[in-house]
């Protein structure tokens, strides 16, 4: 089965500066792919290239096996998007803003606006002027606008910006339902991992314009690499032994060090400590979760 969205070697350069560096993304139908990275990691630039707002310097973007750069006008009507700080005509009402989109895209069923507003929980604000809406409601309106043409793909850049926890949960539920029930493929970007890990099937971590890691959450929630916490009496000696044996560690505080190892390697570590007469007072494992992966990647 083909991918709904596929990028190969997607690169954006401004002069000599590489902003996005050879990003490869593959998203299957109905999948929720989260693009996670700190501010300035390149998420928005990547999304802008995926929506044709910026032209890539190199690389390929394919939607449903169609080349995006040559079939933009065919592909874009099948995409709904929410961009960072979405713009609206502030002096017009929510309904008027959406009606104008309907006029352009040619969806003339009046009920469609009501339906979309109801899905997003914006029905009460139908006749409210956009200038009176809170940031969260503007984000919801942007999401309503994205859903108006019943898209096959949703591309959302920081869609939860300004949401309170209840609204964020509601939107997550809507997105999950669209993905599972209507097979809508979703690409969502965020700089807050906790926001997206609850709904994403796959997470791609971006740093300095590169896709540094892609984790498929469907097949495994955590990696098989765990962290071993060791409390020992002679930290100086332990550090020396570990360095001699080329084992990576992190010194935490006083007499605790942390090793990133597999389960199978525990016996070898304990033997190493005993051979060097280092007493291990305490030892425990902690799973290596997404947050740790994220922080590790960002620190590197």
């Amino acid at each position: 089965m083909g991918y709904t969205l596929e990028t190969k070697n997607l690169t954006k350069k401004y002069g000599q500066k590489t902003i996005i560096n050879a990003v490869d993304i593959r998203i299957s139908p109905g999948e929720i792919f989260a693009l996670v990275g700190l501010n300035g990691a390149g998420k928005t630039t990547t999304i802008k290239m995926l929506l044709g707002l910026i032209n890539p310097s190199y690389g390929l973007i394919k939607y449903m096996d169609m080349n995006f750069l040559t079939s933009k006008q065919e592909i874009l009507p099948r995409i709904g998007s929410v961009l960072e700080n979405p713009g609206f005509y502030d002096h017009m009402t929510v309904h008027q803003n959406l009606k104008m989109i309907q006029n352009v895209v040619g969806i003339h069923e009046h009920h469609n606006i009501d339906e979309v507003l109801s899905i997003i929980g914006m029905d009460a604000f139908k006749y409210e002027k956009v200038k009176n809406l809170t940031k969260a409601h503007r984000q919801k309106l942007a999401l309503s606008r994205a859903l108006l043409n019943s898209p096959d793909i949703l591309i959302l850049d920081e869609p939860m910006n300004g949401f309170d926890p209840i609204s964020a949960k509601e939107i997550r539920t809507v997105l999950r339902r669209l993905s599972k029930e209507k097979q809508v493929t979703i690409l969502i970007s965020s700089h807050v991992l906790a926001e997206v890990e609850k709904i994403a099937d796959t997470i791609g971590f971006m740093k300095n314009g590169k896709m540094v890691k892609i984790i498929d959450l469907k097949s495994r929630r955590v990696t098989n690499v765990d962290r071993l916490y060791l409390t020992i009496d002679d930290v100086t000696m332990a550090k020396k032994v570990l360095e001699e044996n080329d084992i990576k560690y992190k010194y935490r505080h006083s007499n605790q060090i942390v090793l990133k190892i597999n389960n199978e390697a525990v016996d070898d570590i304990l033997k190493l400590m005993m051979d060097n007469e280092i007493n291990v007072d305490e030892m425990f494992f902690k799973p290596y979760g997404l947050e740790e992966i994220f922080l590790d990647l960002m620190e590197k």
Partner: protein
Amino acid sequence: MSKIYNEYLKLKYSKLKYFVYIGVALAPVSLLLLVVIINSDNSHNNVTYLEYMSLILKFIISVLSLTLYNWLAGELVAVEFRLDTFKSQVTIPVSRGSFLFTKLSFISILVVMMTLTSFILGVVIALVLNFSGFSFEITLKLLPVYLKSSFLVLPFTYFTVMLIVWFRTSLAPMIVNLMIFALTIVVRNFNLYAIFPWSAPYRIIFISSDYGNFTLGNSYFAIFILGIISMYLANNRINKMEI
């Protein structure tokens, strides 16, 4: 048509519409006051209907079209960048070329309608106040002149739109337009007046004989070239624009 209708809705629900009303009423009303002052002075002959309508047209061509019309045209485009709505339109998708074409079409309709409404207002005022020399025959002869004038000033607005697309803000283009406005006053003393695109419409409408070495055709050509180059540059810029 639906895109043009959207432009109408945007104008209808924005404060810009008040400036449209002002633009329509400014020439007939302000010149009426001038006429009242002149007519109250017995040493002068009364201003006739034809003179009044001619004053309105002169004011529109040499002042309003270079200032208010241009500012309105600029704002109608600049607002899309200011509110970040251009970005969302392109992803709907409205092609960039179509976006520009819609804006220029709507601005053209607006300028023609504003000029014609000023004309109608002038006629109504003259009729109600019983201006000397008023006749429907003259009115019918004046209508195509007003219409032609409105078309001749359209390239000014296209030039402004081009500047807005390049700068994505209305401040720099308005400064450029004010400088051009000042320049039209300066070139008045030179033969270049006939082929300076921003003064050429005045020459075409009010000075139909040859002007220095320049024929009427030269004046038309200057305006035409301004319009074509502005549209080309605006289209080129908008298609390459990174949003």
